[in-house]
């Protein structure tokens, strides 16, 4: 009894200390904290979209086509950021659109991370022919410009948001494979792994429970990078007409619909892109902060 309480008490301050240390370095960077703040607001907006959006995203007001934002002449306060060519409220569409962008980021990153880490672990652990074979395939995927490959994959699978997400995940996944494999190869000959093997741990346990936790830092940083590139690439595919299809209020798709009005109604084009930029910027700011906080080489400076 006493033993158990002792160990939990010992374990708790330690993990708390690790987090406190991480937070100390993370909060050193003002940009990272701002990025985190913006990201939390975005998540809140996405979750509360039906409550805060003044209109429904697809409701068309026939008497309010291309109304400018409220501060411009002819603007109305009820359409805060104006309306688009079929009279839909842009602010409401942007609010609902945040759901798509964040979902795309989460889905694509999760898919790329899990498949990439699994393949990378197998390659690094097995080595030899399996490793060579896997890494050649990754080289082949990386030989194409990512957006081009995603575009062609969507052409095969058919346009749509789900297919676009799958294509982007496939294109981003080799980065995780490479990172995991490199980390596994440096870790696998260390003593704690040998000790674990001698103690009778099987390959699954060695791969996932012994080695993987020690390779996490670069993977977390790569995951934030993937999160922002997933949002950018999905928006780009939407803009090219190959991602989410109208009338989905996805930001890239909104830009594609707005293209023909660029010289007549600047607000239709400006706000969706600004939303993409702010989201991606916030995530990249967090990514920079994470990298500085997790990379021990940079901690000293």
């Amino acid at each position, binding site marked *: 009894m006493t033993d158990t309480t002792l160990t939990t008490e010992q374990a708790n301050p330690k993990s708390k200390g690790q987090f406190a240390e991480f937070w100390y370095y993370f909060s050193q960077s003002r940009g990272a904290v701002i990025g985190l703040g913006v990201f939390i607001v975005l998540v809140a907006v996405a979750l509360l979209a039906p409550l805060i959006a003044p209109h429904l995203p697809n409701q068309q007001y026939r008497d309010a086509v291309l109304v400018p934002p409220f501060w411009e002449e002819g603007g109305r306060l009820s359409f805060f950021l104006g309306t688009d060519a079929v009279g839909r409220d842009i602010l409401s569409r942007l609010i609902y659109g945040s759901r798509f962008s964040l979902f795309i980021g989460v889905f694509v990153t999760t898919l790329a991370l899990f498949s990439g880490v699994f393949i990378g672990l197998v390659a690094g652990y097995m080595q030899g022919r399996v490793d060579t074979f896997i890494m050649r395939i990754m080289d082949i995927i990386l030989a194409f410009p990512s*957006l081009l490959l995603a575009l062609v994959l969507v052409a095969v699978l058919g346009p749509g948001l789900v297919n676009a997400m799958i294509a982007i995940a496939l294109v981003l996944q080799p980065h995780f494979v490479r990172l995991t494999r490199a980390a596994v190869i440096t870790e696998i000959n260390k003593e704690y792994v040998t000790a674990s093997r001698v103690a009778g741990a099987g390959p699954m346990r060695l791969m996932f429970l012994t080695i993987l936790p020690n390779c996490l830092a670069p993977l977390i940083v790569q995951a934030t990078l993937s999160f922002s590139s997933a949002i950018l690439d999905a928006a780009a595919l939407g803009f090219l007409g190959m991602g989410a299809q109208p009338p989905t209020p996805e930001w890239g798709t909104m830009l594609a619909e707005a293209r023909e009005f660029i010289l007549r109604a600047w607000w239709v084009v400006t706000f969706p892109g600004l939303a993409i930029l702010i989201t991606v910027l916030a995530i990249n700011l967090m990514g920079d902060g994470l990298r500085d906080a997790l990379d021990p080489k940079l901690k000293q400076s």
Partner: protein
Amino acid sequence: MFRFLIGRLAVLIPTFLGVAIIAFSFIRLLPGDPVMLLSGERVMSDERHAEISQQLGLDRPMPIQFFDYVTGIFSGDFGRSIVTKKPILDQFLTLFPATVELSLCAIIFAVAIGIPAGIFAAIKRGSFFDQSIMGVALVGYSMPIFWWGLLLIILFSGILQWTPVSGRISLMFFFPPVTGFMLIDSLLSGQKGAFSSAVSHLILPTIVLGTVPLAVIARQTRSAMLEVLSEDYVRTAKAKGLSPFRVVSVHAFRNAMIPVVTTIGLQVGVLLAGAILTETIFSWPGIGKWMVDSVFRRDYPVIQGGLLLIAGVIMVVNLIVDLLYGLINPRIRH
């Protein structure tokens, strides 16, 4: 050096074969009959179907088809477009210079601004300038370039009316392509105003395509420079009483450039991916727009051939960058 080259080729050839396998299986993965997809004919009789199938070699076993495909590639046969009926390689070669011209201008723009900005930020580390430059670089790095292009069009073509919206040169001018590079061809044509028209068409696409590489290069230059500036030999140079300019430009700069050159080389893929969006926005007749148009027209042979050609170009450029890197940095050759 020779052994280094052989080693690189040993990796490159299987990768290229893999890329060819992907391009080859692409048509066969599509829902539908490859005979119809490759010939572009929607309705055909059984005899016609058999005839085309035999003509395209689709009636033969899969491995032989692949062998034919690869041997065809090496003799320059990438198939024909369903829409224009022209050979794909010819189309690629007429459109490619437009993309190269745009990409070269973009990378020159990115290097010319990115490297000085990165050096300056590193020297003034922690200052207001450093923070502003790095802030702007992060915005550039996060930029959805298709939106950035539209914004620039609104401002410079719409409100200020300084630059044209699309194309490579004003329709007033017509001359046969000699090099395929509009800047050179317009000079060669000797027509008054042709060159300045070509330049004004090039400015916005260059900025749009160069933005992300510019941000990446500025960030990379700053961190490489910071690393080098803390080295002992830089301190020695300072202690000898050399001017700060000489220390930075001679002692630090050369060594800091090694990782930056790699970064510049890695931008080739970024540029070609960016060209897809930039060329679409500015109706720039290059291979990026060609690929997007082909996806919309369901011109599958062009997508197949273009995919392979673009990947081939990237691999060759990466090989050249690797070799150059070996020349600059002797440590890597062994």
